[in-house]
């Protein structure tokens, strides 16, 4: 069954600086929406508001037509892959997988490429790239209909990057995905729709040239 997320309005300020000004977008099951923005543009702020860990000045969000209050329904409808590593450092990978995911989803993670070699290690014994890859697989394995991915490609080796892209494309049938990363080419490879967060508002992007024109990319970066 498809789900429908409608962000009608999100407004948030830090002091006098208005970071999000009437932000609005929609995300359905099957969508992969790429979100770009310079450092400090408010991408993570928007993600934290949608996940319920930050209370905005004002918001109006609907999921499947019902008013959605992120803080009250945290961890039920939206999964959030953070910029940093959020896995408990002292825990064993095998323990985390078995505690975090239902039985029928555990095999998907356990038999994913690269997981076998880390299965009996503790999180702090893994490289940063492995930690982030495992974190991605765990969040992807959750039953939530929507998923927010903040910099899933950062620190991850090219081989894992391709696996992440394959898995996202495979999972889009069940989920609506909002993804942000400064590795813009990886995002453009998989996103159906791209948005740029600039001066607190979202602008729909059609191609690289628009990212240059709006000051997110330099001409040299695209060449």
């Amino acid at each position, binding site marked *: 069954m498809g789900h429908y997320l409608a962000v009608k309005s999100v407004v948030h300020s830090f002091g006098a600086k208005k970071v999000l000004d009437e932000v609005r977008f929609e995300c359905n099951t099957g969508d992969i929406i790429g979100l770009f923005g310079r450092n400090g543009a408010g991408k993570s702020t928007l993600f934290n508001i949608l*996940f*319920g*860990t930050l209370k905005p000045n004002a918001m109006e969000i609907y999921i499947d037509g019902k008013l959605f209050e992120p*803080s009250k329904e*945290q*961890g*039920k409808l939206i*999964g*959030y892959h*953070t910029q*940093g*590593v*959020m*896995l*408990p*450092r*002292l*825990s064993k990978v095998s*323990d985390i997988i078995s*505690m*975090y995911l239902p039985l029928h989803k555990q095999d998907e993670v356990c038999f994913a490429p690269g997981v076998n070699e880390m299965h009996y290690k503790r999180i702090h014994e893994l490289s940063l790239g492995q930690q982030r890859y495992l974190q991605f697989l765990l*969040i992807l394995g*959750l039953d*939530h209909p929507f998923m927010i991915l903040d910099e899933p490609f950062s620190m991850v080796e090219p081989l894992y990057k391709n696996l992440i892209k394959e898995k996202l494309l495979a999972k889009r049938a069940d989920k609506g995905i909002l993804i942000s990363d400064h590795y813009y080419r990886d995002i453009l490879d998989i996103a159906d729709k791209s948005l740029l967060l600039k001066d607190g508002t979202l602008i729909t992007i059609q191609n690289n040239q628009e990212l240059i024109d709006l000051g997110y990319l330099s001409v040299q970066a695209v060449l």
Partner: protein
Amino acid sequence: MGGLYFKYYANVTLYNLAFCIICPVIGVKLMGCIIIFGTIGCLASFSIYKYFQNAEYYFYANKGLSKTHLQLKTFIINLTISAFTALSLWAII
């Protein structure tokens, strides 16, 4: 879900126990340490956890365990353990 909560509880309680073990060094008596475990020690352990492992709250939140829920439950458990132990000790003495 219980296993996931226990993981958080074990992590936070380690800090709390370390805090309580240090207390006798500065002259706090056994009964004082037990009371600290259920009160100030518990609050201190939340602060230490937040300082070192704040990002892990997102790990639990993704499964519907909010920071408030985790801390409140832990505080109630530790307060109960502390009160029960203190009363038992008081009855024995």
